[in-house]
């Protein structure tokens, strides 16, 4: 069974002349890592937001067996870890440890603390737990926000531009880190090198439609080849890989 199933997803913003998402179909298997790649304003972020009910939608979204509806929205969201494009926006508490603990608010405090510290250590930011988010660097904030998303061990992680604003070292660290996380992922990104390192499948999205897909092999040669095909498509000088009619 897929951890994420999307059928005929349609999102239309008020006043827009065309839908932001039009008939999107996709599925993500457990522990599969899938990327959404496409030009600006192609609908990547809208798709991620639609999956957790942040925008009004038509069609069917099922996450970990729960169909998204007004009544089930909280249940669906509890099965998803979300990393927003600006990590600062999702860190809601003035101290790092409190923000990570928030995701475990239904757990016994002692257990929650142990778990939160373990995740912070795994992400290499255990020394920041008493710090205030606005004293952290961009990379550190991303890790803290990711800790808040991962600590509840959701079956699905949605990431919006996870490598945005990071330097090459920070990007490489994040890629290695995500490669070890045991859950399914759907990420929107412009960083082709990053998505080819982390993901096994890349969906091409343009004008609100999934128009193709690229399967990325694990060897470096395969990853480079996939990156080249994606780049050619992005630049408009190559065919659409795995064109979907």
């Amino acid at each position: 069974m897929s951890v994420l199933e999307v059928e005929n997803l349609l999102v239309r913003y008020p006043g827009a002349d065309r839908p932001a998402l039009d008939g999107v179909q996709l599925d993500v298997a457990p522990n599969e890592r899938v990327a959404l790649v496409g030009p600006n304003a192609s609908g990547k972020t809208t798709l991620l937001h639609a999956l957790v009910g942040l925008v009004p939608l038509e069609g069917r979204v099922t996450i970990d067996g729960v169909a998204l509806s007004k009544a089930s929205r909280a249940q669906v969201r509890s099965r998803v870890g979300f990393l927003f494009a600006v990590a600062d926006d999702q860190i809601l508490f003035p101290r790092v440890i409190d923000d990570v603990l928030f995701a475990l608010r239904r757990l016994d405090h002692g257990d929650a603390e142990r778990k939160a510290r373990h995740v912070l250590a795994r992400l290499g930011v255990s020394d920041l737990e008493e710090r205030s988010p606005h004293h952290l660097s961009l990379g550190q904030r991303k890790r803290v926000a990711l800790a808040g998303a991962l600590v509840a061990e959701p079956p699905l992680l949605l990431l919006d531009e996870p490598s945005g604003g990071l330097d090459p070292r920070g990007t490489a660290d994040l890629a290695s880190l995500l490669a070890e996380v045991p859950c399914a992922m759907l990420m929107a990104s412009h960083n082709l090198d990053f998505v080819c390192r982390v993901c096994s499948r890349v969906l091409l999205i343009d004008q609100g439609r999934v128009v193709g897909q690229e399967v990325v092999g694990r060897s470096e040669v395969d990853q480079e080849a996939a990156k080249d095909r994606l780049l050619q498509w992005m630049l408009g000088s190559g065919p659409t890989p795995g064109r979907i009619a």
Partner: protein
Amino acid sequence: MRGHGAWMQWGMTDGFLSRLDPTVRMLCILSFLSAALIVRPIHLAGGCFVAGLSIVAAVASGMSLRRFMQILAVGAVVFAPAFLLTPWLTGGAPLFEIPVLGWVTSRGLDIAATIVVRGQVALLLGSVLAASLDATDLALGLKRLPIPHIVVVMVLQVGRWVAVLLAETRGISQAIALRGAGRGLSGGWLVLANVPLVWVPRVTARARRVASAMEVRGYGGELPRASLARPGLVDASSVAVALLVLAGAIVIRMR
């Protein structure tokens, strides 16, 4: 934010005061502030009392002399204009005449000096409190007091976002100035006029994004789960001292 010259920052000091229980910290500063407002600062005993209180509070918080002087300077700029009101504050013995405006009386000077001293003390003690409490301590400290939950949540969130908004404001004004709008008097006005025009939409967009994140993460006004340790002997002694200070202020006032 640290080391950027801001004169008042959350939880930046680590003096004796910062090691007290957060609720005790708040009660002590509140008690000091009440004491400073009770005495008449223009009398010798009252003046010495207020000055001593301010110095003790600043030292207990671990505030540097430089920052102490910065706060006094800001207070002077903010409150000293109260002396401009003296020609209109009549009563008492006339002291000297300002042409056109009229006579300055002893009562007028007393009132203006009281406003300046009390304003300075309130600013200083507020800064001491802010400097010795971070936003989490503040929320946890308030949680123990009979304050509505929603107020504590708002204080916590204000504490979380105020630094972000300040950084954003600084960025916008620097960008406008760098693009040449800050040169000369008219340029200065252009910066002043344009900052809100850029700031409001940007802050609104950020507020929307934060609201989305709160929604996705299921935030419903929860406070940090960390619980405070029970106040100890040092905390109890500090409250006792603060109450003695308050009692002392009442005695000085009644003399």
